[in-house]
């Protein structure tokens, strides 16, 4: 008996060591709901033909997909649903394939604030959105890949008046999105840094209602020249710095006040593609584009206009830009009070 107990204790000792090694995480191996805070790990691939494979019904949850995939058929509404009012959710390290949506949260307005972080997840083949999060207080997505979806990421916050409302999109790759790659709405601040947007079919980024956006060191490319844009900002402002844009009809379109567009590299679609290409457009119907500083950009649009100021563009300044190679006109100014501050190269 003593020998048996010793044997059992040894086994238990090994067990204890291994349990520490995997840090006591809770295994998930089939569809279900996560109803308690904690650290969960997916221990096998999950495939679902219907229903929602993973439902998060608690705050303070980390879900490590552990290199595994959750795959959904065309009638699976979302692969992972975060229910309201749960917050502080982290999802990482795996694949979400198919379904209508990848990760979804639809919190009602007035939600006290959800914090969601997604890291190193590959999304592919969603019929709708890879990620859609409503009323997020903070949202972060890093080192992810999104391929072949309708919309890449749609995130909305409670509005720019809440200084905590923030969005951070860093080091991702988003490609083959038939509509918008990023849709960022109603937050106080947004950082979009070091991402690659490939094969943009409509818009690389649509930003509305964000007062402090920093969009820097991203690469935007499109093989569809007409009707495409790299960044469309409506009622928003920020710093658009050191990005490269290739092949879009409009690379940057800003309707808002007080932005700075600097150090970017613009290459337009081929002249034969038609349309009305512009590297930068300020102002649009119903929204002014005012007091924007446009400097140190390199613009080579082949046709159309390098800088286009609409009738709703006022008091903007452009200087130190290289505007050669536009094919059409370097600057098309239909606004008022827009100033060539010098040192532009035409």
């Amino acid at each position, binding site marked *: *008996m003593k020998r048996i107990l010793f044997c059992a204790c040894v086994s238990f000792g090994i*067990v204890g060591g291994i*349990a520490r090694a995997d840090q006591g995480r809770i295994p998930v191996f089939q569809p279900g709901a996560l109803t308690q805070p904690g650290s969960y790990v997916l221990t096998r691939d999950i495939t679902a033909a219907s229903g929602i494979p993973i439902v998060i019904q608690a705050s303070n949850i980390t879900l490590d997909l552990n290199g595994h995939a959750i795959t959904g058929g065309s009638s699976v509404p979302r692969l992972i649903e975060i229910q309201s009012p749960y917050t502080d959710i982290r999802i990482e390290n795996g694949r979400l394939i198919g379904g209508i949506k990848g990760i979804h949260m639809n919190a009602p307005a007035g939600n006290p604030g959800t914090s969601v972080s997604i890291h190193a997840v590959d999304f592919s083949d969603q019929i709708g959105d890879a990620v859609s999060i409503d009323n997020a207080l903070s949202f972060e997505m890093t080192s992810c890949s999104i391929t072949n979806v309708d919309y890449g990421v749609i995130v909305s916050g409670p509005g720019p008046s809440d200084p905590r409302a923030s969005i951070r999109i860093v080091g991702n790759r988003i*490609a083959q999105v038939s509509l918008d790659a990023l849709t960022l709405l109603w937050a106080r601040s947004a950082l979009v840094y070091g991402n690659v947007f490939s094969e943009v079919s409509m818009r690389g980024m649509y930003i509305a209602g964000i007062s402090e956006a920093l969009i820097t060191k991203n*690469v935007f*490319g499109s093989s569809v020249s007409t009707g495409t844009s790299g960044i469309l900002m409506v009622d928003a402002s920020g710093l658009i710095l050191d990005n*490269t844009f*290739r092949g879009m009809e409009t690379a940057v379109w800003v309707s808002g006040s007080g932005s700075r567009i600097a150090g970017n590299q613009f*290459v337009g679609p081929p002249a034969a593609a038609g349309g009305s290409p512009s590297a930068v457009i300020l102002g649009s119907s119903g929204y002014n584009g005012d007091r924007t500083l446009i400097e140190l950009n390199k613009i080579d649009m082949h046709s159309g206009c390098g800088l286009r100021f609409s009738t709703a563009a006022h008091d903007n300044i452009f200087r130190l830009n290289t505007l050669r190679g536009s094919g059409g006109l370097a600057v098309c100014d239909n606004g008022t009070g827009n100033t060539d501050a010098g040192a532009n190269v035409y």
Partner: protein
Amino acid sequence: MSMNMSMKRNAVLGLALALCGATAARADEGRTPIYQPAVITQPGSYFLARGLAVDGQDAIVVAASNVTLDLNGQSIQGTAGTQSLIRIVSGSTSVRIRNGRLVGGVFSIYYEHTVSPPIHLHVQNVDFVNMAVMALQIESAGHVDVIACRFRGTGTGGGGVQLQGTKVSGRFTDNLFSDLALGGVKVFGTREILVRDNMFSGVGGEGLFVGAGQAVLVEGNTFVAPPGGLGSWGIRMEADGALIQHNVISGYATGIQLGSRGSRVIENVVRNGVAGGSGAPGIAVYSPAGDDLVFRNQVEGNTGCALALGAGTGSVVYRANMLRGNGGGGVCDAGTGNIDGGGNIL
């Protein structure tokens, strides 16, 4: 008594084994272990459970899509006669490889055939050591991320990354390339490429070569040629519309060479170009280049010209550069219609 003892013994032993079994499953958290040379034929999450050494055969063959391979801190070591340490079979895509060391072999990771479907590959935190030809050779690339890896050759052989394709996008960030005689990163058929915050130390041939394409951002990298004249180009750019900024380049026959249109070269330091003798320029722009902007660079200590504009170039604008202290002079312009935009220090 005997029966009771036996039942108790079995109960205790059963409990121990049950715990052991249950926890063993949790120890690898549902991932599939690899402990000998293997062919992966199913999607899933795999990890290397021990180091592998191979002589003449491929260590791991990936013959499925949606595979995550965690090298788990282990090494795969091959002799010089080993073609590939990890070979990815044509048609496999969405592969992630991370966290380990690949030593020796002709290729460390190899995706075969230029006619294969383009692969999506993510490689992170992998050490590539002493490859005979190329660490990462992808014959048909769609999108490739190489993040936080270290590449170290023998000094007289080995190269970093070579990607071929027609629509190649990718991110190369936070890597170290050292002692590579056959070049650092070569991309052919470029679409959207981001190369940021890498160190190229003792890299011969081309530190970075980007072939025909558009939308490239090269920023914040350091390129240092090896001694003995093995370094030919720090950056050789043949993609249109590239943004090359904030790099340090030292010791190459040509620091930066543009053979493309509409690029912007700004705020780089290019120095000590001695490897090519008196013909070694700091920055060279060759036909069919044109409409490029060379702005605010510091080019000094090169044996050739600071800025060489070849025959057939036109509309290249250079301004506000510091071009003193080069053996061949400040600007050698054999083109037509190139423009001194002022502020250059000769």
